[in-house]
């Protein structure tokens, strides 16, 4: 079984400032890691994923994340945010052993609020 902790329920940031959204996970098996974004009244859209290889992964809309196995973390970063980045962000994990058949385990989400 896995669990995901998103330490901040809400993060206010000024426009054009950098942001980091924190994610820690717990698992007894190896996992794949994902960040999804959810805009109001919409489904989830994949920002980026870590499956293997380089621990720094780049995604859409200028976001990137770094997998740190020793700290069991997968923090999301963006060097300069825009008003359009205002949304709910979810970190999720999936056990590797399931071959993709497992459901995702999500954190509770972080609401990113961009202030002009």
């Amino acid at each position, binding site marked *: 079984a896995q669990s995901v902790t998103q330490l901040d329920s809400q993060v206010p940031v000024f426009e054009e400032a950098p942001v980091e959204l924190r994610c820690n996970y717990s698992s007894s098996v190896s996992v794949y890691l994902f960040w999804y974004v959810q805009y109001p009244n919409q*489904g989830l859209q*994949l920002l980026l*994923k870590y*499956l293997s290889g380089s621990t720094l992964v780049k995604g859409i809309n200028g976001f990137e994340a770094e997998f740190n196995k020793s700290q069991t973390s997968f923090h999301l970063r963006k060097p300069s945010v825009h008003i359009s980045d205002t949304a709910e962000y*979810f970190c999720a994990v999936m056990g590797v052993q399931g071959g*993709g*058949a497992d459901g995702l*385990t999500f954190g*509770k*989400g972080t609401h990113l609020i961009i202030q002009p």
Partner: protein
Amino acid sequence: GAGVSQSPRYKVAKRGQDVALRCDPISGHVSLFWYQQALGQGPEFLTYFQNEAQLDKSGLPSDRFFAERPEGSVSTLKIQRTQQEDSAVYLCASRGNSYEQYFGPGTRLTVT
């Protein structure tokens, strides 16, 4: 191409009524997942289909919840005798050959 679609987008049911929520996955996607997202929470896994076979239903909260995918394409999540605690957004996702799950817009169920 078309993404995952869900209908209805909004459903209001009186306590005790039965509801049926529909999911149309991306064409050709073998895997289909249902999730329940309570207000202010992350989605929680309900059930998983591979083609028409329901391989995992460990997340279904009670025997009032039932899902089917008879022809390996469209799926229906049915909730019998709805209760107030069933109020949530129900998300459907499909997956092709990659590990990425593509989500629909969800159905917001409100039980009054």
